[in-house]
């Protein structure tokens, strides 16, 4: 096949012309007062929970403090260390935020190589003077949704509740441990109110992924088939798949609203599913963590070390009325809902919650108070052995 020099020449000239035209100088923006890098793992953006929250918080800080935010998404796990290292090497970032446990090794290595660079990592502890490690007490928040789930499932006559999890990392053990404790506590609270213990059981699966949405749908379908009344999403973007399965189940019964319900995670996901398919969400304020860290760098108060965000400082929590409006803006920004849907979603949500008897909501609020005051200590797990111990303490089998 003879290549035509003419054709090549024409293409070349055309491209140069187009590029030339595109080189119209952009309007100069105000010089940023600093730069912050946000490095994400392979799960990436668009999960409407964990990673999007990290982005949201840093974005707000950038807007409030006049910073420039650069987002770096990792295409594969081999990119973790190069991405963090590249950012550190460029010496142009005041702070490098790494969102997620999977970036631990990368941050640990880069922090050693660049001791003058400030790092922050979420969900993991890296012991270095230039690294701020922010962890959450997901077990406390999960206990609240576990109690809610157990009582609501019993109220609607479902024998099980479910949990769809991601990869078996220590962070997820926090969720599972708290959830188990909560379900058990919810069963006992129900027994106190109604004189019979419903013995709501737990169906759980570790899908092994934080990015394959289809696995979330499969896992949820299997749980719904075994009569799970609520499914807790503990795998970021997989919640989108979980909700698809739940929506199909609801529509197959000729209804529009749940039960069965999903329980959202990290962000307030109650608005998803038209406001009446996600009963509650376990909020993990990753956005606040990123905001606080950025603020600390701007104000010069940044310190390396451990920061624990629990129920008492609203680092975690169960979704309540005021959060919903704030997070609907999140959904609008992501293009999932429009501003016109807002009123409908809010009224659906209020209906959904009103149909759950108030004694259940009071019990959950009571549990929250007891955890904050320290009367109740929610079990936690960081290793597989500890998780197995919690599992044998709260087997939740039927």
């Amino acid at each position, binding site marked *: 096949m003879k290549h035509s020099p003419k054709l090549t020449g024409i293409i*070349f000239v055309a491209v140069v012309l187009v590029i030339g035209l595109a080189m119209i100088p952009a309007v100069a923006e105000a010089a940023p007062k600093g730069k912050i890098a946000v490095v994400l793992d392979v799960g990436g953006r668009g999960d409407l929970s964990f990673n999007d929250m990290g982005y949201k918080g840093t974005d707000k800080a950038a807007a409030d403090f006049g910073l420039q935010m*650069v987002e770096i998404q990792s295409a594969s796990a081999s990119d973790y260390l190069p991405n963090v290292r590249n950012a550190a090497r460029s010496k142009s970032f005041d702070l490098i935020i790494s969102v997620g446990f999977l970036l631990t090794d990368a941050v640990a290595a880069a922090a050693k190589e660049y001791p003058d660079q400030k790092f922050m990592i979420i969900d993991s502890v890296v012991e270095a003077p230039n690294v701020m490690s922010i962890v959450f007490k997901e077990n406390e928040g999960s206990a609240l949704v576990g109690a809610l789930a157990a009582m609501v499932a019993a109220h609607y006559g479902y024998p099980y509740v479910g949990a769809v999890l991601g990869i078996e990392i220590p962070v997820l*053990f926090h969720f599972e441990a708290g959830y188990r404790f909560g379900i058990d506590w919810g069963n006992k609270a129900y027994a106190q109110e109604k004189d019979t213990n419903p013995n709501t059981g737990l169906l759980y699966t570790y899908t092994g992924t934080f990015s394959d949405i289809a696995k979330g749908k499969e896992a949820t379908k299997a749980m719904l088939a075994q009569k799970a009344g609520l499914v807790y999403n503990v795998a970021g973007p997989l919640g989108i798949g979980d909700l698809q399965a739940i929506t199909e189940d609801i529509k197959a019964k000729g209804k529009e609203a749940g039960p069965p319900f999903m329980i959202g995670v990290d962000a307030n996901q109650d608005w998803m599913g038209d406001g009446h398919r996600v009963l509650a969400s376990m909020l993990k304020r990753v956005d606040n963590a990123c905001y606080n860290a950025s603020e600390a760098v701007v104000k010069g108060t940044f310190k390396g070390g451990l920061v624990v965000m629990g129920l008492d400082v609203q680092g975690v929590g169960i979704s309540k009325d005021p959060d919903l409006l704030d997070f609907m803006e999140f959904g609008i920004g992501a293009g999932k809902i429009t501003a016109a849907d807002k009123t409908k979603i809010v009224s659906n949500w209020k209906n959904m919650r009103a149909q759950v008897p108030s004694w259940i909501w009071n019990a959950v609020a009571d549990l929250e108070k007891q955890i904050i005051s320290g009367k109740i200590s929610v079990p936690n797990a960081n290793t597989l052995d500890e998780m197995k111990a919690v599992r044998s303490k709260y087997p939740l089998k039927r």
Partner: protein
Amino acid sequence: MQDREMGFAGRIEELNKTVIAGVVGFAVGALIMILYGYDPISAYTALFSGAFGDLYSFSESLANATPLILTALTFAIGFRGGMFNIGAEGQLYLGALAAVTVSLFHLPSGIGIALSIIFAILAGAIWSLPVAILKAARGVHEVISTIMLNWIAQFLAFYLIAKILVDPLRAEKTISVAEWGRLPLLVPGTSLSCGIFVSLFAAIIIYLLLWRTTIGFDIRAMGYNPLAATYAGIEKWKIILFVFITGGFTAGLAGAVHVMGRPPTYAVYGGMPSIKGLGFEGLAVAMIGRNHPIGIIFAAIFFGGLLAGGRMMQLFSQVPLEMVRVVEGTVVLFLAIPELIRFFSFLRKVRIPLTFRIKRSQNKEGRQL
């Protein structure tokens, strides 16, 4: 276009085609970026400097290239033998896990590395055996059997990672390759290990194998014209076995050098996010490298450069990952075209019309076949 050994002029013409394809690919990528409002000049500057701009960047590119050379060789050997071996993916998973398994024991460094490599090579070869046997004995098309075995390998790997080789303290990954089992870093402060030498060595061995040995000649003959080769006395089943087993060696080796050479973790994560796709990327690399070991070396370095530079595109030009992938894909697609054209014209000329040729010859007077 003649499909036989080319002289020097012929090779230059082929190289020309690849270069032009590359230029067109980059131009189209630039067009797409402009359409979406990104600045291609800044993006490509970041891309090229991030790929080859300094020692750090070049090391990152080479580090990316290391496993790709090997998986590309797997495909290329098959292609030269007239087969479509896409089993590198599954074989490399098992090769990586085999290398990790050796770390369960305590061994001195030299032996440890050698043993890990041997285990990995064997794992890859064992996994390619079913494909070879099925094809030789029952004529099962290798595309089907390799894809099926890739899936089986994936789930087997998931099981091994989560239950057998799992790190008791960090449940999301396997145990790390022990210190003595790691390939030393070639350039400190980068991801580049001595694994690159292993890959280059393998490429040279495969080149010598295919072009300087009898069995290599037989493989290539079988690839050009299976009927003529069989008529000349080359036994097909021997070629099949040899091609797939050798392919299995290189694929298993790819998994091993990746897990033994890549900082910081030196382990396989649950879900295998760091080694997934290396097999199929190797396919693209083989196509770009025209299925020749030396071409593959350059193509792999180019591909590795695209990946390393792509990271810089995100960092410095704020081009989002999705757009980086679009540009990478566009460039690779265009670069693969010259080889695809050769492959399809080869098919048209030899395999399908063979029956027509036989019929036509018999109609001519005096001609017999």
